[in-house]
């Protein structure tokens, strides 16, 4: 072993894994958090006035904006009463230099796909409630989720952003005038969406097969490839378990993750409730 001394920053760049390991031996993380501690999370509802519903979510330095825009469209021939809910995640070069301009990266596509699967399989929004007139007009909700600043755990931020933005959506009362074939909407009467459940996520990384890191940052993500995401709802039921990479995950890890995810649910629900209250006061 050489006894050469480095600046901490040099050491981090040369030996990112060893750098993290040194911290974890002392049960603390490079940003001063405990292993089981989430970063400070804030939710800001209705921050974009041009959308029908929006929210801005911050988990530490990771920032995600979700805006939902409603348009009127014709339903599918096969399901004449169902509207559409189209989520799309965008990771632009703005949020991190590791993303290149151009068509959506694999990472962004996987995020969109997983969010779409969550919406469908947990039937969060009954698409039939988006019907204006059967066979003629339905609402299309475009949920654009844009990452503004990337510092790890962007999936959590996206899901929280989408769910809170959906609960923030207020659609105008719309009627279909059959003779003219037009949809008429009044801005005076706004109706919120009826969401069947409000699932919130928690993401974990396993490092070295033994350290369970809650809410990993970008630096931690780049060295700990074993990632577990658990999404649960208000009743404590699980909506998604997503685990990729690594070979050291056992049922014990999963049990621990699920129990932490439930605690995290309560935490996020409280944050969202506070924000809703303060929003209503204004």
């Amino acid at each position, binding site marked *: 072993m050489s006894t050469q001394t480095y600046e901490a920053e040099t050491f981090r760049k040369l030996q990112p894994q060893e750098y993290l390991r040194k911290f974890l031996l002392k049960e603390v993380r490079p940003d001063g958090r405990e292993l089981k501690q989430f970063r400070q999370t804030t939710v800001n509802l209705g921050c974009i006035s041009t959308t029908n519903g929006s929210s801005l979510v911050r988990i530490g330095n990771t920032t995600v904006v979700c805006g939902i825009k409603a348009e009127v469209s014709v339903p599918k021939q096969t399901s004449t009463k169902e509207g559409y809910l189209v989520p799309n995640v965008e990771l632009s070069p703005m949020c991190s230099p590791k993303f290149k301009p151009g068509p959506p990266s694999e990472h962004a596509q996987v995020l969109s796909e997983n969010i779409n699967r969550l919406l469908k399989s947990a039937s969060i929004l009954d698409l039939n409630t988006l019907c204006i007139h059967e066979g003629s007009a339905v609402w299309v909700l475009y949920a654009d989720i844009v990452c503004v600043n990337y510092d790890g755990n962007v999936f959590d931020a996206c899901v929280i952003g989408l769910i809170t933005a959906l609960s923030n959506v207020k659609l105008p009362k719309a009627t279909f005038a059959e003779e003219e074939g037009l949809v008429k909407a009044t801005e005076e009467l706004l109706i919120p969406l009826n969401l069947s459940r409000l699932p919130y996520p928690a993401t974990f990384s396993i490092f070295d097969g033994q350290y369970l890191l809650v809410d990993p940052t970008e630096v931690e993500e780049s060295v700990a490839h074993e990632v577990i995401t658990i999404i649960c709802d208000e009743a404590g039921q699980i909506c998604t378990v997503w685990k990729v990479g690594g070979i050291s995950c056992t049922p014990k890890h999963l049990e621990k993750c*699920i129990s932490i995810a439930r605690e995290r649910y309560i935490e996020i629900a409280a944050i969202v409730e506070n924000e809703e209250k303060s929003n209503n006061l204004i």
Partner: protein
Amino acid sequence: MSLNRVDKRKFTEIRPISIEQNYVNKDGSALFKFGDSAVLCSINGPTEVKVRDEKLDKATIDVLFKPWIGSPGTNEKTHELVLRSTLESIIQANLHPRTLIQVVCQVLMDDGSILATAINATTMALINAGISMRDIAVAVSCVICKDGTILIDPKEQEIEENQSFHTFAFNKVSLNLLFCESFGVFTEKQYFDCYELSKTAAQEVINEIHNAIKYNITNGR
């Protein structure tokens, strides 16, 4: 318990497995079938890599997933990410720095549990290509019915009828969880029931793989 699955299987029974190696003329290839779900996987490598994708300390693993019908979309991209991250944790990529290991999965028939079939096909193709691996991955899917029964290795029809769908991949040596994808609404107990049943089914898949390899080696294929 009555046998009321569409193809008269038991709830925890996997469909008949068929494995064929050296299917196409590549460095390694395999055709893996779970009943009527079939995936052909071919491997090229370690071979030359584009400078852009070159990694100085390990091989680059590139996965292409081609669907049965239509062109690849976000679903296939997700499968690619899953396959790649699973392979990265079992292949000894550090033995072949500055090279490319290319994996191409083509779905030949889709009758449900296609990702599990693809993972198993990739495992067989990697073995055929002689790529050094620490371990092998085997995968099994299952669904939870509305009445709570768990069906292992579901057909397409069974997936459509049920709400929560799970795919698990395990490693052979310690049967730890390599990959898990569960969507739907389910309780913690249901999840771990699925986990245990899939693990048992994965052991059966491992046995089948072992037999197939033994057969191929003793017959000089």
